[in-house]
């Protein structure tokens, strides 16, 4: 049993407020043979400029330092790709740095960028993330992904990521899912929901109308996970402009407060020590004392079924932003749905549901834009962009894309961005006849979770309408 010190658990503090001024996404696809990486980055930057009626030339005058999220140099077949992009965006001689935290790279890029503004170092910064996974053949790509495990000893033995995820999924499935068909169907519902929402998003890579039975009939990857339970591999870019209050209001009338917090956990199963569950503001000490009775085998926290990194990002982030109960205080979330089962685990880690009850977030209908059971608006819609399963997972861009999607809702401009026929046309797509505006009415606060590895790094990004802030 381990415990953390007070200093380690201190609520992170910005020295001044940090605002999200604007942001933009490129289109996302499995491959972009006709587009260079910088074109995708420029596309994202142009979207961000259009959003606040400015130009890259004008916006660049305000930028003082730059933060670039790009996970895998190997995949892009370009070392120091950050410097190349910085150069091609014409941002020299500003200081810039590349950030790499696996799947959480996008969120970590916002984390670094926000601290530059919060500290006073810069008044306005660029956070830009991208990934290029179409330059190498798939077998070479698999080799690179395996290289992210410990090459000294894990990879030579065949102990690879997918294997870790599989044993974790097995354990969660047995203990908390109780190997029930109903739980399997709940997992599938997430895959159906997110691909369905992607149908209304012109940026999305994999819009698809499928059923729960389609998911359950798809090939087994590692039981209980099937092909349609898994996220995409994508190419694309996303960016955000963060600033202090004065600069933010000079650039737009409606900047949003942004708070970013991060957590981590070891990949080594043997080092995932037993500990008391670090409690979120909406949880009580007694709450988990019977967890082992209700779910035999589920009492050793965090075991290998909880993501401590996700819990810590929420632990710090909720306290920074004044969030007590995420379901009550937030209006929507964008979660890292790498796999349907890890999505359910995350509901528990970030306090949307208590440990063991993650599935009820889906089964209650709370995670939908419109609750399918009651036909009323969902209490806390999740992944209206389509998420990693339906929209994209262009690793370095993912956490930024999620945050920008949240921003659209908070501005009430989700429909304007996603429904614009010219954008569908520009991407060479037909806007669906049954296109739906998924705007969350009156949204004032949103959360994006960016997640790496088997929970090695996780960030929580909270975006808040300043008139509805909870920290003051």
């Amino acid at each position: 049993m381990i415990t953390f010190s007070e200093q380690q658990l201190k609520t992170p503090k910005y020295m001044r407020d940090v605002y999200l001024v604007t942001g933009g996404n490129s289109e996302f696809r499995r491959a972009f043979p006709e587009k260079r990486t910088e074109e995708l980055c420029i596309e994202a930057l142009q979207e961000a400029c259009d959003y606040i009626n400015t130009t890259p030339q004008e916006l660049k005058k305000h930028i003082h330092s730059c933060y670039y999220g790009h996970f895998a140099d190997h995949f892009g077949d370009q070392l120091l790709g950050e410097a190349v992009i910085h150069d091609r965006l014409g941002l020299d001689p500003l200081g810039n740095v590349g950030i790499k935290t696996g799947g959480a790279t996008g969120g970590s890029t916002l984390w670094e960028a926000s601290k530059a503004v919060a500290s006073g170092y810069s008044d306005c910064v660029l956070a830009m993330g991208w990934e290029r996974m179409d330059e190498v053949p798939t077998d070479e790509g698999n080799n690179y992904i395996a290289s992210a495990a410990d090459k000294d000893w894990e990879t030579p033995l065949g102990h690879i990521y997918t294997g870790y995820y599989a044993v974790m999924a097995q354990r969660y499935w047995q203990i908390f899912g109780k190997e029930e068909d109903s739980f399997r169907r709940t997992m599938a519902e997430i895959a159906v929901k997110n691909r369905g929402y992607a149908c209304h998003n012109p940026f999305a890579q994999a819009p698809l109308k499928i059923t729960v039975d389609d998911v359950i009939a798809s090939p087994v990857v590692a039981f209980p996970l099937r092909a349609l339970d898994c996220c995409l591999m994508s190419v694309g870019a996303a960016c955000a402009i963060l600033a202090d209050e004065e600069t933010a209001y000079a650039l737009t009338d409606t900047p949003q407060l942004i708070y970013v917090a991060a957590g981590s956990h070891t990949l080594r199963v043997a080092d995932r020590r037993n500990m008391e569950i670090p409690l979120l503001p909406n949880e009580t000490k007694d709450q988990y004392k019977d967890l082992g009775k209700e779910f035999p085998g589920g009492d050793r926290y965090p075991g290998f079924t909880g993501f401590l990194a996700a819990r810590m990002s929420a632990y710090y982030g909720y306290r920074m932003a004044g969030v007590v109960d995420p379901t009550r205080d937030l209006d929507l979330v964008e979660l890292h749905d790498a796999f349907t089962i890890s999505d359910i685990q995350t509901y528990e880690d970030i306090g949307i549901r208590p440990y063991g009850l993650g599935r009820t977030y889906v089964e209650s209908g709370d995670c939908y834009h419109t609750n399918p059971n009651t036909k009323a608006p969902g209490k806390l819609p999740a992944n209206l962009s389509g998420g990693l399963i339906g929209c994209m997972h262009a690793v370095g861009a993912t956490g930024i894309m999620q945050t920008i999607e949240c921003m659209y809702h908070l501005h009430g401009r989700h429909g304007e961005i996603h429904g614009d026929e010219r954008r569908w046309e520009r991407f060479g797509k037909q806007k669906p006849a049954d296109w739906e505006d998924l705007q969350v009415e009156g949204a004032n606060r949103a959360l994006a979770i960016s997640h790496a590895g088997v929970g090695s790094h996780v960030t929580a990004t909270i975006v808040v309408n300043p008139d509805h802030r909870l920290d003051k």
Partner: protein
Amino acid sequence: MATKRVPVVEGLFSEGADGARLTGSRCATCKTPYFPRSDLCHNPDCTQSAMEDARFGPQGTLWSCAVQNYPPPPPARYDEPYRPYALGVVDLADGLRVVGRMAVDDPKHVKVGARVELVLEPLCREEDGTELITWMFRPV
């Protein structure tokens, strides 16, 4: 002539008169076990990192298990043709939780909760017949 057996990675396990053991370390101050060996105690509660070599195993309980249905990418090694194997997570009696392959013929027949013991088995064979050895867990 006896088959030559070499560890696939040096320094992770050994075979003594008492059988197979994993080689790691333990902090003398807080007793936290580590595998593989660690040079520094990771326990935030610990007052003084004091790492000593330690050997772990052989008894344990299978905590979770999954079948690796397709060949792992290099540098992982396996004999052709590839045969799916079970990857287990085992709670050793020493308080250590370890990932390892299951030494079973049919990976589908491994049951969570089963008592297992540590064994050293070939991961694959070199062209000259040399066996590359790793640790595995066998149900008892």
